[in-house]
């Protein structure tokens, strides 16, 4: 009997609470061993892990690379897979390989397969593929089914078809509906491509008949493990779900889930603290209640889920900008600091005369407003850091541009210059570095009125 079937046939809501263990909110950065093992001692009915996010930026989706180091991903997969098999409970992993596109899902599956082979664990693995083809998105756009995320405020509208076709990967976030379909294939392990964080933890409880509002609210909180605690942490988090409420407890005894810390977590990374949009509907937190059960545990109730008539999917797409070289240097001369933007413009003109081609320099002047605009009075006058990006269709041109720019800035003769030895301080040489490829998001939109079954591919494989 497979793990999902075992749970569905044996767990009776009402007879006991469903224990959901969130092992990690970022699989691949090292699951804390002690707290995870404490969670296992509580005999969870299911172990879930979130592996992805859009936070790290467009590079991962665009390139197909994982953000987490491969050796750590393997380590974490080994921990959670061996634990789930030892307890014979389902293991559910969402947003495989950071961005959840095809290459991310395949790389995660390959590592899981390695672990399963090494430990001689026969498995049924269900998968969800979340990729969209550019033509699907273009067609949806032409049929009026692609929408800006927030149509009430001006913002980026719809991209044109050519830009959509330039995306190297496009994914949609699958929801609980799709997770349930994959779970019906009765796997031991479910690995999904790009997913709503909530689906990882809410789908199985909803299949068991738990209230969707409670299940989704629980999922929304525990997908970040112990971040909802005081102090926040990365340790495994246990939720015990009942018919009327759920109870939250960190598996690190030093971390306390208090009503205030849990309620505050609802604000985190959310534009609206009272409303969470899911593909299948909206989670309303206005009536949510948080009560201390004791010093370390909080009981949560009251969230309501309103389904919408047809699902809305969040779509993400990234396209290549070019290759990136980076020049890193410091400037300490107050005369040059005072006129740095102008100096960079002049050197940029010279360098473009010397080196024609489709390259561009993007400056980040630390100390002068690189992180956010700074009023003149707050800008550093004694030392600034330069991080200059050079973007070009090919790395060779980007690196050449960085080198030419560097030498011309080093010896740029600006008015009033006293220091003729050189304008830049290098912490190391070569000071120009190849810094991967540059991508940008061209899609972060809503796809409405589509059948999720036409978007997400659900399948299963048996590994002996």
């Amino acid at each position, binding site marked *: 009997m497979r793990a999902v079937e075992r749970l569905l046939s044996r767990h009776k809501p009402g007879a006991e609470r469903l224990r959901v263990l969130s092992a990690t909110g970022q699989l691949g950065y090292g699951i804390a061993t002690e707290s995870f093992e404490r969670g296992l001692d509580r005999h969870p009915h299911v172990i879930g892990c979130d592996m992805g996010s859009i936070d790290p930026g467009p590079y991962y989706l665009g390139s197909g690379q994982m953000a987490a180091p491969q050796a750590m991903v393997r380590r974490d997969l080994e921990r959670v897979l061996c634990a789930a098999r030892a307890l014979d409970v389902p293991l559910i992993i969402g947003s495989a390989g950071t961005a959840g596109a095809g290459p991310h899902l395949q790389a995660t599956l390959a590592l899981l397969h390695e672990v399963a082979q090494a430990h001689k664990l026969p498995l049924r693995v269900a998968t969800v593929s979340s990729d969209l083809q550019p033509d699907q998105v273009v067609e949806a756009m032409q049929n009026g089914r692609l929408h800006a995320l927030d149509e009430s405020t001006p913002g980026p509208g719809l991209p044109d078809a050519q830009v959509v076709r330039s995306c190297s990967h496009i994914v949609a976030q699958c929801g609980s509906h799709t997770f349930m379909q994959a779970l019906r294939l009765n796997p031991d392990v479910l690995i999904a491509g790009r997913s709503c964080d909530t689906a990882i933890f809410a789908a199985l409880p909803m299949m068991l008949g738990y209230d969707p509002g409670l299940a989704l609210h629980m999922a929304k909180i525990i997908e970040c493990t112990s971040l909802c605690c005081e102090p926040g942490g990365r340790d495994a988090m246990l939720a015990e779900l009942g018919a009327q409420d759920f109870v939250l407890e960190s598996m690190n005894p030093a971390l306390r889930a208090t009503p205030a810390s849990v309620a505050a977590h609802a604000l985190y990374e959310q534009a609206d603290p009272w409303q969470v949009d899911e593909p299948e509907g909206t989670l309303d937190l206005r009536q949510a209640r948080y009560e201390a059960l004791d010093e370390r545990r909080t009981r949560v109730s009251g969230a309501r889920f309103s389904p919408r008539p047809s699902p809305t999917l969040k779509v993400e797409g990234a396209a290549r900008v070019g290759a990136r070289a980076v020049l890193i240097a410091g400037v300490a001369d107050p005369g040059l600091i005072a006129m740095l933007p102008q100096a960079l413009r002049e050197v940029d003109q010279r360098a473009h005369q010397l080196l024609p081609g489709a390259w561009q320099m*993007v400056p980040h002047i630390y100390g002068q407003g690189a992180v956010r605009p700074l009023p003149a009075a707050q800008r550093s006058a004694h030392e600034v850091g330069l991080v200059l990006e050079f973007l070009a269709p090919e790395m060779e041109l980007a690196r050449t541009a960085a080198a030419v720019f560097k030498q011309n800035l080093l010896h740029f003769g600006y008015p009033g210059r006293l220091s003729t030895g050189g304008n830049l301080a290098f912490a190391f040489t070569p000071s120009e570095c190849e810094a991967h490829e540059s991508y940008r998001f061209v899609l*972060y939109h809503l796809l409405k009125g589509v059948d999720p079954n036409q978007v997400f591919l659900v399948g299963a494989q048996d590994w002996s």
Partner: protein
Amino acid sequence: MSSPGAPAPTALKHLASVVRSKNAGPLCLTVDVFFSDRIAYERAVVSYGLSANAIAVLYGVQAGQVRRFDLPEIMAIKLAMPRTLCAGDPGDGDVYGAQQHAPMLEVLL
């Protein structure tokens, strides 16, 4: 000049227990401010410095683009606004949006 009995203007960093920023998706920036005492929270809620209009000016976004949520139960104020650049676009200096809270610290209440 402040009226008799009114507290002297105080920077937010001296009144709040948490001031944080983070993306809510690559197009949206959110700023959360938490207080540990009711008096400070009530003072913040009615202050001009934390009004949606004042925050729009502070962050260089259009008036009307800042949404504010008051959460008295947990003594928190949440602000949400569009990012001036999509996260990770060339020229963006803060992909996660995690250091955009800085100008809030000096807001006078």
